[in-house]
């Protein structure tokens, strides 16, 4: 699907400073060498299976299906992976590749913290140094993951520029990478950025869709009618879709974060509200103003709070092969609560955007139809934020129970915010 220069239709490319060009070319050459290397594949498969716990389950959500009374709903349980999200699939691949390239240090951006946690995990496992850049606003929203990364031996650097969210963390990673190239690999967390990242990350995530195909054939003896996944940069969605792009009967639906609504400025729905642009190394769709200034976006979900979308999604949209729908904070929170109550599974708020669409669509489809929705991550990290959204402050109540200790702010904060996690 990729042209030699990293294009997906008109999208993609390598819009980066000259300083980084030799590095991305080196990365592309290394990737092309190792991706078909039997030794590399064997090593990666062993890590994915033995360490990350693959293959992930395809779970028939019986109660949800009965309750909604339409299409059969399957959940692709990426939330059961080690570190609690699909991010580990890509990170293990990239860390192994970086190691083969002789790199000793990983840098990464993170939004919700799941990619940062996965990178810190792989770095710990492989004995590499790790620095994670995270917007200060996201550090506030996802304090638990900040401490997890530190626990895993990573340094977390707060990014105060711009809106203090995911896009600013990506910008800061790019700046850091131009400063220190020799020993450092930028472990990009989504199907975005300059070529070859959208291809590399998609390939490492495509294990999701390959497993779905085999599991559906085993359970249903046919392909699903619809695949649904949430889209920020779009890595779990492309991982879900990629193996099915050629299967015209399978409908592909990406769910963007509408925030408070696509008719407001507080939204992160790129396809629904953005237009063509060039940013973060790629040509794609971006939320921007009339002068091309990147817009400050908003979503309750830190992981979807990004003003762009991966170039392959932009192309799937242009080709009308995939549909991209917008889901609001409120719809996502309701889906978050619904799955928790109905199936006893607390989904990530990112994944809840995909669930919200399924909840709306399943009753309109026949009982002979099947939907697979990718549960990209688990929701433990979001519990405090959802409680806050519903007007309950877990933090404050717990604060009275725990005596503040001087000089241990981080640990104190962690204890307050982790009832029942892990």
């Amino acid at each position: 699907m990729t042209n030699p220069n990293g294009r997906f239709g008109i999208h993609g490319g390598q819009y980066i400073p000259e300083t980084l060009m030799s590095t991305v070319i080196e990365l592309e050459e290394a990737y092309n060498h190792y991706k078909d290397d039997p030794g590399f594949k064997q090593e990666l498969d062993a890590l994915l299976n033995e360490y990350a716990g693959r293959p992930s389950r395809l779970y028939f959500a019986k109660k949800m299906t009965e309750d909604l009374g339409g299409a059969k709903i399957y959940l692709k349980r990426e939330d059961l992976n080690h570190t609690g999200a699909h991010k580990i699939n890509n990170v293990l691949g990239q860390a192994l590749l970086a190691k083969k390239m002789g790199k000793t240090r990983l840098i990464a951006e993170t939004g919700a913290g799941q990619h940062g946690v996965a990178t810190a995990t792989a770095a710990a496992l492989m004995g590499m140094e790790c620095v994670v850049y995270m917007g200060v606003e996201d550090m506030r929203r996802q304090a638990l993951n900040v401490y997890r990364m530190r626990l895993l031996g990573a340094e977390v650097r707060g990014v105060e520029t711009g809106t203090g969210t995911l896009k600013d963390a990506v910008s800061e990673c790019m700046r850091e990478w131009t400063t220190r190239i020799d020993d450092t690999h930028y472990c990009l967390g989504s199907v975005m950025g300059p070529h070859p990242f959208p291809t590399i990350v998609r390939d490492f995530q495509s294990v999701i869709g390959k497993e779905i195909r085999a599991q559906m054939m085993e359970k249903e003896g046919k392909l699903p009618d619809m695949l649904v996944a949430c889209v920020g940069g779009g890595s779990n969605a492309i991982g879900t879709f990629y193996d099915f792009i050629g299967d015209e009967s399978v409908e592909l639906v990406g769910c963007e974060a509408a925030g408070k609504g696509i008719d407001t400025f507080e939204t992160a729905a790129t396809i629904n509200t953005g237009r063509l642009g060039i940013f973060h190394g790629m040509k794609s769709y971006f939320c921007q103003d009339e002068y091309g200034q990147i817009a400050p976006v908003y979503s309750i979900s830190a992981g979807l709070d990004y003003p762009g979308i991966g170039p392959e999604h932009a192309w799937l949209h242009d080709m009308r092969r995939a549909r991209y729908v917008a889901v609001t904070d409120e719809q996502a929170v309701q889906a978050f609560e619904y799955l928790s109550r109905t199936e006893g599974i607390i989904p990530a708020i990112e994944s809840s955007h995909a669930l919200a669409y399924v909840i709306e669509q399943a009753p309109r489809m026949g009982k002979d139809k099947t939907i697979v929705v990718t549960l990209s991550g688990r929701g433990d990290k979001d519990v405090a934020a959802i409680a806050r959204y519903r007007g309950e402050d877990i933090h404050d109540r717990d604060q009275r129970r725990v005596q503040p200790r001087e000089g241990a702010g981080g640990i104190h904060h962690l204890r307050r915010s982790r009832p029942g996690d892990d």
Partner: protein
Amino acid sequence: MAFITCGDPDLETTKTIVRSMASNGVDLIELGIPFSDPTAEGPVIQGANVRALKAGTTTDRIFDMVESIRDEIGVPLVFMTYANVVFSYGTDRFLDRCVRAGIKGLILPDVPYEEKEEFAPSCERHGMCLVSMVAPTSHERIAMIARESKGFLYVVSSLGVTGTRSKITTDIGSMTKAIKEATDTPCAVGFGISTPEQAKEMSRHADGVIIGSAIVRIVAQNGKDSAGPVGEFVRSVKDAMRSL
């Protein structure tokens, strides 16, 4: 060669700074069009971008500003900005306005050799130079980039983003030697040059020196009264380079 972020602290001040630079002997002025997310800039120019955008600076207002002073300024003016600012305005529409405003060239730090076809053909049609950049990591890419360079070649002195550095460790001499073997296009060294002494040292190896962050910092400190101090600074750099 001197850089200034347009609209920091406001466009009226930018006018006075440009006049002051020109009358103090600068050879070329790079006018920065602010961008919300300038990924090649260090903290100093990032700060200027934020201040300029907050002050309501837009691409259209910058064109108006340049048109209003163009006739008084005797030195070439070029724009430096990011790909999306030009692309989103409409590349041809942007370049039409550049021609009307008397702008001679365009520097886009996020457009490497591999992507220059996005802008180069339009620039050529408008008689504008799309300035190419080489970096310390370019090595065997230097000849390829230099051969197709237009106007001047921007030699990035160091790894990393823009901003002052106490010392430049790259072997600039061997970079410019490789450039000279491939092209007659003049080359100018930028990134991290902040003192008259550094400028003098760099001008031994290159045809020109570009100073950005050091000037933007003077503006950050002096606000609307920056024209005088920037002029003095430009003069001191020019004097040091002449003494070579």
